[in-house]
């Protein structure tokens, strides 16, 4: 399954250490794959929405979302369905594979992480998003500034971007 880790976990890898009990993932999930996905997360070990809910969310062209919670540890995974969102279409082919001794994960490109965090900050006002962005800007992560600026403009995020950089 095509996926990428984003959110605070991604900003932590790109920038400074941060404790989080939630993992955000963008997944290419089609209705036909939902049963197979849920089978990987047995109800005895995870809170998971009913299959029908996951099917509905996976069918949404944009903003499809559901979560899984590990009963034993409380760690949560928020899954965002890629759908037809153009930013997902841009980011998924640019995800970065990180090889680990135990396997590998794929990470959202930093431009995607920044744009989503700015949007979430605008929606909810949580300062954690601006903190994470500032940490990313201070780190050694290289950004495609042309793409970023074009998206900031088209999404009306110029003011949020100015605040994040202040």
């Amino acid at each position: 399954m095509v996926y990428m880790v984003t959110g605070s976990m991604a900003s932590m890898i790109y920038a400074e250490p941060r404790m989080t009990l939630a993992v955000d993932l963008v997944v290419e999930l089609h209705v036909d794959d939902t049963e197979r996905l849920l089978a990987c997360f047995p109800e005895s070990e995870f809170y998971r929405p009913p299959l029908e809910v996951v099917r509905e969310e996976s069918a949404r062209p944009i903003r499809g979302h559901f979560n899984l919670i590990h009963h034993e540890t409380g760690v949560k995974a928020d899954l965002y369905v890629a759908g037809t969102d153009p930013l997902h279409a841009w980011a998924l082919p640019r995800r970065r594979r990180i090889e680990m001794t135990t396997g590998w994960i794929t990470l959202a490109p930093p431009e995607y992480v920044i744009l989503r965090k700015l949007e979430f900050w605008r929606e909810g006002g949580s300062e954690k998003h601006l903190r994470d962005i500032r940490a990313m800007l201070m780190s050694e992560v290289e950004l495609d500034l042309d793409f970023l600026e074009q998206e900031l403009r088209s999404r009306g995020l110029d003011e949020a971007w100015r605040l994040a950089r202040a």
Partner: protein
Amino acid sequence: MTTDDRPDPRQIAIFRRMTVDQKLELIEKIREDALALKAAWLRQRYPEDDEARIRKRLRAWQLYGRTDLD
């Protein structure tokens, strides 16, 4: 990526049921996983670095939030 900082109520219920030892164990596991992930990222980003230099970068990251050594 939620819009606020609050944990999900189901997570809060789980944390309340956990013993102190379980919580400490969870924190340690999260710390270890974060270090393993960051180390893997650093190995890819600095392929010329040997393991000693990667450990130095990891230490700098934990202490100062930065990985440049110069």
